[in-house]
């Protein structure tokens, strides 16, 4: 992947990242680096440079709650989970995402038909 492709993909991913984080954390609580690995397992290359600031902002906005838990592999880790506001935000964002996806798909289809 070229540098330009990577930057473009990064910008696309950045828009969807809060929804992805909220969705993954609604499945189960995770620490920051684990979220990066879970996203990577889904084929989404979001580095810590994107995920950590997003977690920090969402915690600041009250969408996530954090707590520290002991780890079997070393020092304690900071785990994140959804708050009630985070759950509400996830539902809203999911609806918005579906709406956007449909609109983009319609636009792409109609443009394709014109051609």
């Amino acid at each position, binding site marked *: 992947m070229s540098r330009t492709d990577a930057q473009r993909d990064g910008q696309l991913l950045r828009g969807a990242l809060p929804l992805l984080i909220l969705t993954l954390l609604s499945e189960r609580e995770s620490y920051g680096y684990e979220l*990066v690995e879970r996203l990577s397992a889904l084929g989404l*290359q979001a580095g*810590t*440079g994107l995920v*950590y600031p997003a977690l*920090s*902002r969402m915690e600041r906005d009250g969408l996530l709650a954090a707590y520290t838990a002991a780890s079997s592999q070393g*020092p304690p880790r900071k785990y994140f989970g959804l708050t009630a506001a985070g759950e509400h935000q996830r539902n809203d964002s999911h609806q918005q995402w579906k709406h956007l996806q449909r609109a983009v798909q319609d636009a792409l289809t109609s443009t394709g038909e014109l051609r």
Partner: protein
Amino acid sequence: MNDLHDTDTTARRSMMDRLRIDLYLMRLDWHLEGGLPGAGRKNVIRSLRDDLLVEPRSTGAALRDLGPASGLAARYGDEGMKRPLWSIGIITAGAALLVYWALFLSYVWGMLAAVDDAGAQQAHSAFLFLVPVTAFDTEAGVGIGWSSGLAWLVVPLVITLLAFALGARLWRLTRRRNRRG
């Protein structure tokens, strides 16, 4: 992109690794001043240091994945609410003052060498066309001096303040006030 496979399973950081992390976090802290208030900044730095210390990848891979400190700080900050960068302002002002004095000393040492070569008693000049400087080489002694006027103080002070204002992005203060207004 992140390199999740560059792992160091010991998850232990050497003194050198910790130093690299601290240097990175110091640069991040300077840039975070532009986006976050003090308490928020401390939280981010503490949390990120903890994450970096326990992350299974090598320190180099972990820091590469975070990217340049300035870019990371922009992502952490409050979007659209830029604050002045006081720490970077102080560093820029200090660097400007150092450069000024290095140039000034080079200039006067050059004058002194010229006076010595020419066998002249003394020479007068103006550094940056503003600061009067004298170099003398007499039987009583060799030395440099500048006039008792205020130019020798005012010129470096203005340069330092200008460098501070530019480094700290002081114009952000007025933008913030305008937004509040």
